């Protein structure tokens, strides 16, 4: 990992298309501004990690579950139908 030291208002360029600027520093919080082409996704790292973990959890499914869960959904639909009467 490349480690650079920046002061407030200073920037880093990633290739010639992405700029990361230290907008302000307040205590132990740093506000970063990111200027990148629209086709490049920018998210907090925790979000990526959360989504990856969720996908992995989703992959961990065996076939037999599906029939039971479909029944649960059906039950909910029926109940909803009755509630609306």
């Amino acid at each position, binding site marked *: 990992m490349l480690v650079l030291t920046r002061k407030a208002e200073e920037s880093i360029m990633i290739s010639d298309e992405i700029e990361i600027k230290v907008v302000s520093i307040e205590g132990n919080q740093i506000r970063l501004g990111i200027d990148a082409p629209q086709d490049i996704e920018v998210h907090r790292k925790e979000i990526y990690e959360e*989504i990856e973990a969720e996908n992995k959890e989703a992959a961990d499914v065996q076939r037999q*579950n599906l029939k039971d869960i*479909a029944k649960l959904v059906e039950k909910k639909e029926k109940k909803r139908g009755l509630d609306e009467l």
Partner: protein
Amino acid sequence: MKLETTRFGEIDIDEKERINFPQGLYGFKSEKEFVLLATDETPFFWLQSVANPELAFIVTEPWGFCSNYEFDLKKEVQNELNVTSKDDVMVINMVVIPDDPQEMTMNLKAPVIINRKERLGKQIILDDERYAVKYKLLQEERSVS
């Protein structure tokens, strides 16, 4: 073509049913090809990996569970998926079934977008704070706020 799967054995699918995911899925970057298998257990589908027989996801179209789910599809994503008409776009969400199936959830924050016509797919992350990674499917619907 014949497709090997762990859950369904060897199945017969049409080449045209394959969907390309040039960037894979989050956490599964190298998985570039899937097929969407309909099930008897509506409204759920299986998103089955072509290369990896063991890898499959339960997915569902979200609106049966969250009727006011909506988002703008960024132009860049539309271009990536060669979208020319709204009708070609399918949205599905990954379903997680925990030990207690009553608690099953779908990921509204990271929907999977498929261009049915071009057979291209991509998972995206929505910035909208209203949409959770774990949205309970069996909850009473209240307006997402």
